[in-house]
């Protein structure tokens, strides 16, 4: 199952890299970022962690890796983070919610939609949190350099 997950998430993220027109030499990295993110998520869910904190952790790690890769290749971070978070994105939940809305099952729809909202919030929070952390580290390095 884990190998299946690894292969599937790698190709899904890399394919989204192509759909979103990421530069050619970054496609494999996009796939790897997506794979790492999805493996963390799947592992945490398998360990019976709720999907919201699992998503938060995975997106935090994705953002960290994307920042490192971006700094090395001097590209914007979103080139790696956008295809990377695609597997985590609650597309299927959003679809499920909409399906229930259209089928008149409003109470199920609302609860699924709330879950989708929480998960997208978790992804966004993971990304923002790691960016803030990155800025703090940068600032600390700067002040250190100034003191010297």
């Amino acid at each position, binding site marked *: 199952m884990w190998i*299946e*997950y690894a*292969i*599937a*998430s790698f*190709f*899904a993220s*890399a*394919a*989204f*890299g*192509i*759909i*979103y*027109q*990421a*530069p*050619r030499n970054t496609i494999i990295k996009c796939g790897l970022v997506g794979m790492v993110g*999805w493996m963390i998520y799947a592992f945490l869910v398998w360990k019976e962690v709720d999907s919201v904190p699992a998503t938060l952790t995975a997106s935090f790690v994705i953002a960290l890796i994307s920042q490192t890769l971006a700094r090395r290749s*001097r*590209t*914007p971070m*979103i*080139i790696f983070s*956008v295809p990377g*978070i*695609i*597997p985590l*994105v*609650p*597309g*299927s939940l*959003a*679809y*499920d*919610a*909409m*399906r229930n*809305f*259209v*089928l008149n099952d409003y109470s199920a729809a609302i609860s699924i939609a709330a879950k*989708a*909202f929480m998960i*997208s*919030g978790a*992804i*966004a*929070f993971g*990304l*923002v949190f790691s960016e803030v952390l990155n800025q703090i580290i940068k600032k600390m390095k700067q002040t250190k350099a100034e003191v010297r």
Partner: protein
Amino acid sequence: MERTEDLIELCLLMGKMMQQNGAETYRVEDTMTRIAQSFGRDESQSYVTPTGIMFTISPGAHAKLVRVSARETNLEKVNLANDVSRKIASGDMSIHEAYKELRKIETSPTDYSILMQIIAATLASGFFTIMFQGSWYDFLPACVAGGLGFIALINFIRLFEIKFVAEFVASLLIGFTAFSLFSLGIGKEVDKIVVGSIMPLVPGLLITNAVRDLMAGHLISGLTKGAEAFLTAFAIGAGIAVMFALF
């Protein structure tokens, strides 16, 4: 005086390009003010929304507006625009050179052919089905449905010009393909096939960006993107639901 006008045009073009191709709102604003700064204008202000960009070079000067009518995600163009802004910041590029370069990037053809994108969407659909715990029996039908849906989407967007309608029709086609294949005995779980094959259409990224913009304090951007995402999700859900009712 002419130099100032050119600088404003450059900043607006840069902002428009980045916004159109899917850069984050804060990065667009940041890049525009930074370009102005590297030509000695420290007091510029920019206001970026998904549908339009306003920019003023100094307090009291005229504000200029540029409309952003179509948005897509093209990371290569964001990357190239970022390169240009980096060169401007390090003083390697004049206003004119940068402007010319940006125009060239704007009109340059996309890196991947349509065919490659279709293949990518096809594979992505299949692999998403696997990730959502579908079996390998569902892989092929998901590929077929997802690929057809993606082809329908890119063609219908040109035809209808209203994205909402194109997405609705594309998801109708996905639903139809998935359910017909399933009733022919191809595939195990129709739900997993459908979920996987709509993934190339689903506005997941838009939802996440919306929440992120809201968190960063770009309230208008966040709400606009949220509305766009909701409309797309509604179109897809409705298209599939029609097929549910029929089969």
